[in-house]
């Protein structure tokens, strides 16, 4: 299990290839990668991500440990960036390894759902017309109910 909260970019290809590599007991690997999207209408100049150093790592570790236990994962990876990002840049990724595919998929979706609403990150969108904090979505909170 590895958690990384970092300002610098990560190498998706390298992280994916290196994740759980060489293990012969995990039949299923899932990755999710979040990318900064351009906004239709009012083009995004940058996305600024603020976080709570100390708590962020602890919260992500707790979420990942829950996912590992609940879905019998053999391994889990969470990388989340902070700072200023431009459209097309990768914000974060998670990866899960499990003997069977349903657990790998469920584990990755669980990580994403909890990370969205329970890890202390806040996004601000910078466009030509101003800067706005991204509002949380009721559907993101509701997504936790399925687990």
């Amino acid at each position, binding site marked *: 299990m590895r958690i990384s909260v970092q300002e610098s970019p990560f190498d998706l290809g390298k992280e994916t290839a290196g994740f759980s590599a060489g293990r012969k007991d995990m039949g299923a690997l899932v990755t999710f990668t*979040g990318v900064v999207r351009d906004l239709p209408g009012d083009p995004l100049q940058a996305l600024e*991500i*603020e*976080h*709570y150093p*100390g*708590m962020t790592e*602890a*919260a992500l570790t707790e979420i990942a440990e829950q996912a590992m236990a609940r879905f019998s994962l053999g391994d889990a990876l969470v990388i*989340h960036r902070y700072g200023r990002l431009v459209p097309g840049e990768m*914000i*974060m990724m998670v990866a899960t390894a499990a003997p069977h595919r349903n657990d790998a998929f469920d584990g990755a979706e669980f990580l*994403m759902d909890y*990370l*969205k*609403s*329970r*890890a*202390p*990150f*806040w*996004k*601000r969108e910078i466009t030509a017309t101003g800067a706005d*904090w*991204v*509002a*949380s979505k009721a559907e993101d*909170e509701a997504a936790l109910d399925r687990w």
Partner: protein
Amino acid sequence: MDILYFAWVRERIGLPRETVETQAGTVADLVAELRKREDRYDLAFSDLSALRVAVDQKLTDFDASLAGAREVAFFPPMTGG
């Protein structure tokens, strides 16, 4: 006690962290004390349903006790991922 503010709470209050002397027993008591200080605090804490709180880096609620707490953080709902 260290008080931390993030995102628009930080912007409204105008600083990322401060150290306060307080005897507040709960988070709600601390919020009441802060609101009395200045308008910018009163404004920032005017709608608690739009706020989240962590005590010693653990998410909790406004009824939580502050006994033994060293660090309290206020911020809007998270938007990670």
